[in-house]
C-alpha cells in the first residue's frame, strides 16, 4: 500500500502470492523494467531505422514482462514509481548506461542469453512463474538472436567495430556473476543456477568464437559484490535513471494517468 504523505511504497502482495514468490517476481520484474527503460532511451537515436524498430520491440517485450511480474508482487505503478533506489532488486547489469551501440549489444547479449536459459528452466517447471516464462521464453529467443546477430556483425565487421565490441564485452563482464546467484522465491537452487551458468558460458563462448572474439577475463563480482543489485546496492547512474523515470509520477501524488 502506498502511503500518500511519504510517497514510499511499503510491501504489498497480490492475494494468493506468498511473500517469497513476490520477492522473486520483484527481482525479475525490476530486471525487465530497468532494461526496458534503458532501451527506451535509444528511441530516435539508433544507427539505422530497422534498429529503431528492433530496440523498441525488445523494450516493449521487457516492459510487458515487467508489468506481469510487478503485478504479481503488488501494484505495478506503485512499485515502479514510488520505490527508492535502495528498494530496487534489479541486476546491476541492466542498469548500466547504454554507452555506444556495442555496449548496448553486449549488455543485451549477456542478459538475453541468461534470460532465455532462465525462462526455459522456469517454463519447464510447475511453479508460479511457469505461465509467464512460457510466453517470455519465445520473446527472449528473439532478443537473443538479435543480440547474437549483432555480436557477429560487430565482432567480424570492421577493425573499429571489433575494437568497440571487445571494449564493451570487457567493460560489462564484471556484472555477469550476479546473473547466477539464486533468487529467493524463484525455486531454483544453487545447483540449478550453476548449471544455467555453465550453459550460459558455453552459449556465449560459441557466439564469441564465431564473431572472432574470446570470452573476457577477470572478476565477475559486480560493483560491490555479486548479488548486490538484488540487495538494493546499485551503481551511481541508477539514481539518475530513477529520478527521470519517477519525476512526473511523484509530482502528482495520487493522480491517475
Amino acid at each position: 500500500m502506498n502511503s500518500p504523505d511519504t510517497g514510499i511504497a511499503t510491501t504489498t502482495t497480490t492475494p494468493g502470492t506468498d511473500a517469497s514468490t513476490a520477492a522473486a517476481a520483484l527481482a525479475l520484474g525490476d530486471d525487465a523494467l530497468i532494461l526496458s527503460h534503458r532501451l527506451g532511451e535509444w528511441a530516435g537515436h539508433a544507427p539505422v531505422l530497422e534498429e529503431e524498430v528492433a530496440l523498441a520491440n525488445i523494450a516493449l517485450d521487457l516492459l510487458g514482462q515487467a508489468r506481469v511480474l510487478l503485478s504479481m508482487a503488488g501494484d505495478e505503478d506503485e512499485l515502479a514509481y514510488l520505490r527508492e533506489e535502495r528498494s530496487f532488486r534489479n541486476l546491476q547489469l541492466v542498469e548500466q548506461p547504454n554507452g555506444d551501440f556495442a555496449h548496448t549489444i553486449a549488455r543485451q547479449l549477456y542478459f538475453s542469453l541468461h534470460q532465455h536459459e532462465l525462462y526455459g528452466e522456469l517454463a519447464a517447471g510447475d511453479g508460479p512463474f511457469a505461465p509467464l516464462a512460457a510466453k517470455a521464453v519465445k520473446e527472449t529467443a528473439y532478443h537473443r538472436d538479435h543480440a547474437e546477430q549483432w555480436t557477429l556483425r560487430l565482432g567480424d565487421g570492421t577493425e573499429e567495430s571489433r575494437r568497440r565490441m571487445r571494449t564493451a564485452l570487457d567493460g560489462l563482464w564484471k556484472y555477469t556473476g550476479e546473473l547466477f546467484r539464486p533468487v529467493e522465491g524463484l525455486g531454483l537452487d544453487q545447483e540449478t543456477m550453476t548449471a544455467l551458468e555453465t550453459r550460459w558460458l558455453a552459449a556465449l563462448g560459441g557466439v564469441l568464437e564465431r564473431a572472432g572474439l574470446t570470452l573476457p577475463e577477470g572478476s565477475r563480482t559486480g560493483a560491490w559484490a555479486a548479488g548486490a543489485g538484488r540487495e538494493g546496492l546499485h551503481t551511481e547512474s541508477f539514481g539518475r535513471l530513477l529520478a527521470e523515470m519517477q519525476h512526473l509520477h511523484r509530482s502528482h501524488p495520487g493522480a491517475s494517468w
Partner: protein
Amino acid sequence: MSAGMSADLSAQLLAAFDAAVAADERVEPRDWMPDEYRATLVRQMAQHAHSEIIGMQPEANWITRAPSLRRKAILMAKVQDEAGHGLYLYSAAETLGTSRDELLDKLHSGRQKYSSIFNYPTLTWADVGAIGWLVDGAAITNQVPICRCSYGPYARAMVRICKEESFHQRQGYELLLALSRGTEAQHAMAQDAVNRWWWPSLMMFGPPDDESAHSAQSMAWRIKRHSNDELRQRFVDIAVPQAESLGLTLPDPDIRWNEERGHHDFGAIDWAEFWDVLKGNGPCNEERINQRRRAHEEGAWVREAAAAYAEKHTGTGREVQA
C-alpha cells in the same frame, strides 16, 4: 520527357497516362509516367517519410518520463510504429527509382523538408496527448484521401499507416480525457497543451488554397483529392465537438457554428509564423535536424560493420553455423 523519344510517342503516352488517371486507375512502378509526376511523388513521399522519422523525436522525448507503465508501453509502441511508417514510405518511394540513403542525405542536408509541426517542443506530458489527438488527427484527415492516390505503392502504404494512425489518435484523445477528468493540475496541463498545439495543427494542412504552389497539378494527377482549405475545414468540424466532450476549450474565440455554410467558422491563422517555421526558424528546427544527423553519424561505424560483415559472408548466405 526523355530525350530521343518522338514527339508523337510521348504525346500518346501522356494521353494514355492522363486517361488512366482520370479513370481512377492505379499507376504502378513499371508504368510509364511523366517525369514531373515522378518528381512530385518522390518529393511528397520523401517528406512524408521524413516527417515520420523526425516526428519520433518530440514523443520519444517523454518515453523515459511517462507517468504510468501502461502509458509508457503505449508511447513506446507508437514511436516504434512511426519508425515502421518511415520504413514503408521510404520503400514506397524507392519504387520510383530513388534510394533511402539518397533521401536521408537530402533530409540531413536540408534539401528535403519534413512537416513543420515537429519543430514545436513537447514541454509537458499532456503534449503527448495533444499530439495524438490533434497532430495525428490532422495527419489522418490529410492521409485518408491518399489511400485512393493514383500511385499504387503510396496508396497501399497509406492504407496500413492510416489504420495505425487512427489507433494512435484514439489513444491520444483518451490520454487527454484522463488528464481533463483528473486533478486540477492535470486538467490545466491538458488545456495548456491544447492551447499550444491547436494552431500549429491547423497549419499542417499547408498554405491557403490561393497560395499553394503544387495543389492544382497534384489534384489533376489524383495524388491529392481535396484542397488544403477543404481538409482544414473538415478537421475543425471534427475537432470542435471532440474538444467539447473532452471538457477542453480551443484557443480561438472566433470559432462558431455557421448555419448557412454548415461548417464552423474559425479565426485567422498566423501565416507569418507558418512560413517562418518552414524556413527553419521554429523553436526546434535546429535540435531536430541535429539529433537526426548525430544519430546517423554516430551510427556510421555500425552500418559499416554490417556492410563489411555482409561482404565477407557473401556466398555463404549467413554466417557459417557452428
